[in-house]
């Protein structure tokens, strides 16, 4: 390739993939989780179709336990850009009072995995973009950019379609769907450097600030609202923390940090000794293969 930088190449690859899906798939949607990867994906989608708006809607699967600042950011972003933002909540789960304190991995299954499946079925989406990256986790490292799901949204890792050059095969049968990961080849460092280069807005929770937290099982959990249940002996303290990944606040560990600018975050990321998923409590639940199990069951 000519004088393009590493980030230029990654950007062009992602835009190519996003355009291919828009051109070949019947009813695509872009999953939007409000995190930094989603911010990058949204930015790439805007670039890919400019001067047209992205020709597909965005979907946020809301567990109802997201940080308040995330929801504010989501609504502001959708309004400013004039994009179609769908929200889906598993109302059955809400009625049953499913929550991250009492229900552990069942919570993730019902409010995330099941909710996502319900949403995709409801709208009949045939292709869903996700911000998954291969450097995040070992089973992701094995997943194709175009990843196929059967009628029950399950992934069959032993039988993935070959993916040659950039000739993506988007053919599916009725009821089947594709998950597409345009930023598969990006690393966490690439994401941060791209956010900086392109000046992409992200949720303020990524920057260090004084926040009320409790220490639980070695994680710093933010007390984002009065639904947070404290265990005996737990004390709410003000600490200067930031988050490397964003999800449901009771399941997301923050790290103590002074990094309140992008440059400082990038520097911290580069010298970090822990991979980013360690701060996501959910991944440790079930051992080395838990992510693959969830994906086989239909998790993103």
């Amino acid at each position, binding site marked *: 390739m*000519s004088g393009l930088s590493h980030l230029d190449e990654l950007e062009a690859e992602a835009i190519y993939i996003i355009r291919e899906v828009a051109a070949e798939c019947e009813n695509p949607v872009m999953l939007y989780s409000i995190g930094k990867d989603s911010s990058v994906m949204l930015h790439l989608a805007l670039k890919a179709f400019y001067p047209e708006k992205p020709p597909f809607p965005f979907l946020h699967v809301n567990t109802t336990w997201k940080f308040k600042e995330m929801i504010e950011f989501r609504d502001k972003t959708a309004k400013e850009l004039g994009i179609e933002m769908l929200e889906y909540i598993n109302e059955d789960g809400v009625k049953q009072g499913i929550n991250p304190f009492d229900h552990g991995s069942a919570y993730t299954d019902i409010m995330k995995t099941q909710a996502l499946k319900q949403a995709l079925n409801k709208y009949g989406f045939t292709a869903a973009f996700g911000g998954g990256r291969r450097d995040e986790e070992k089973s992701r490292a*094995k997943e194709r950019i175009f990843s196929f799901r059967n009628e029950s949204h399950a992934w069959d890792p032993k039988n993935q379609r070959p993916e040659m050059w950039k000739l993506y095969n988007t053919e599916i049968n009725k009821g089947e769907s594709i998950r597409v990961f345009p930023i598969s080849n990006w690393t966490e460092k690439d994401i941060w450097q791209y956010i900086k280069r392109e000046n992409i807005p992200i949720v303020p929770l990524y920057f260090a600030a004084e926040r009320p937290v409790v220490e639980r099982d070695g994680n710093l959990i933010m007390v984002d609202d009065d639904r947070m249940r404290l265990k005996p002996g737990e004390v709410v303290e003000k600490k200067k923390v930031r988050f490397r990944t964003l999800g449901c606040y009771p399941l997301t560990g923050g790290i103590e940090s002074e990094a309140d600018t992008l440059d400082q975050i990038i520097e911290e990321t580069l010298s970090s000794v822990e991979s980013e998923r360690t701060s996501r409590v959910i991944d440790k639940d079930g051992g080395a293969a838990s992510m693959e199990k969830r994906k086989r069951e239909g998790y993103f």
Partner: protein
Amino acid sequence: MSGLLKFITCGSVDDGKSTLIGHILYDSKLLYADQEKALVLDSKVGSRGGAIDYSLLLDGLMAEREQGITIDVAYRYFTTDKRSFIVADTPGHEEYTRNMAVGASFAQLSIILVDATQGVLVQTRRHSRICALMGIKHFVFAVNKMDLAGYSQERFEEIKKDIEELSEALKLQDVTVIPVSATEGDNVTQKSDNMPWYTGKALLDHLETVDVSEQEETSFYMPVQRVCRPNHEFRGFQGQVESGSVKEGQTIVTLPSRETATVKKLLVGSDSKKEAVAGQAVTIQLDKEVDVSRGCVLTDDEELPVVKSFTATFLWMDDENLAVGKEYLVKSSTKRIPGFVKKILYKIDVNTGEHIPADTVEKNEIAVCQVELTEKIVLDVFKHHKTLGELILIDRVSHMTSACGVVESVDTSEEKPYFEKDDIKIGGYIFEEFYFNLDNAMMTKADADNQTYHPGDVVPSEGDSFKYPDYFDIISVKAKAAVLIRDKKIQDIIKLEEYQFGGLPVLDERGFALTIKNQKELKEFLAEFEETEEKNLSEFHNKWSRFETYRKIVCTDNFWMI
């Protein structure tokens, strides 16, 4: 030198591919602390008796860890002081060859592992061949497990000789051979004291410094991914510049429509630019309306071939064998159209390179085939224009990616007309057969002997799937001409405007009967055709033509015979 190197590791089962990469990551301190901790924990229950099993870093699927093998390609990302790397670690089992090919299609360099205790195996040859087929130009043969071969120089030289022979046979360009031990770390990230006789670089040092910059294709071309029309004023063509560069104000040609236009506005992403180069995602607005849609190509090279038939080397990847004559979807750059394999020229023995005649191709086999498409597309020889020479075949029922291939040659000869007299040429398929495949419930049209008929020639009147009268007329609204058949012979070929209804049966150039019974109906038919728009053509044909009058569809299961 480019800052990024994409490479793969391949070779036979147990040659130590995953271990080698795991070791590079471990030695280069490229693991996060939690990953390293998990590795030590996982190794305790693994097959190396508590010693660190580096392959566990890459074999991420449950089935892989259970069986201790690599099933699918894994991608890893790492950066040293000198370079960024993406490595695809590929499976060694023959059963998973297609997953290995996935990795090869993405890489610039291939590390092929050879077990020093085993030497060059069939799988080593297979993988080298596939890497070469996919267009990889840089090779490192890592002769592994030197510790188990007593770090013997003699053994190394022996294997090196076989590798050199293989490289010559496959015409590999840039080849480096390095003796290593992936488990012990000899010559992996550091030069080994155990093999003082080896004077070359350690593997990582080689990877950090190897020059993989390609000789660039010079002409500009961009396959169109989609047409962007946000409003009535703007119509832009979106795609990736595959080679060369394009500038605002430059004159370009559209293919296959062959119209000339000027670049009025150029967007790279959302930014207006004066110039865009290979690799960039662009939107091109032209100064006039042109007949361009997805799958067309914008270029400054008028000579790019627009073809319907070509020869390609395929790697078959489907459990279901290749069927000659069966319709597949062919995807090449951004074009996806039906096509079929007309003929298997030969299979290639992966071990010896021998050409073997064949009437089918099985999974993991390599074969050279002639392919025929349903329409002309922009396509070129892989060695001339990489992106225009890559293709995949998709099964229309299972939707499996059945094969991948590279174009070896294109057939640019003009299509032969069916009927010809002076400058009148008529196409169609009036003497071709219609077959129904019982296996997959698909219809196929089989080419007859590809003959052109002239006035005075005798024409076939009966085949497997047609029976025509001795006296009839053929009219082609497309070619604006008519053929008069009298006593099975062509009496004349005339222009449609000179044609008069003469009371004989009238057929179209497909062999379908037309329901024209007098001069008045002929006029109505012609007038209606003139008014019919492209998208309503089927309606027009359904009204006027009858397939079943002279034709039928016959069943067959011997598709490879056609």
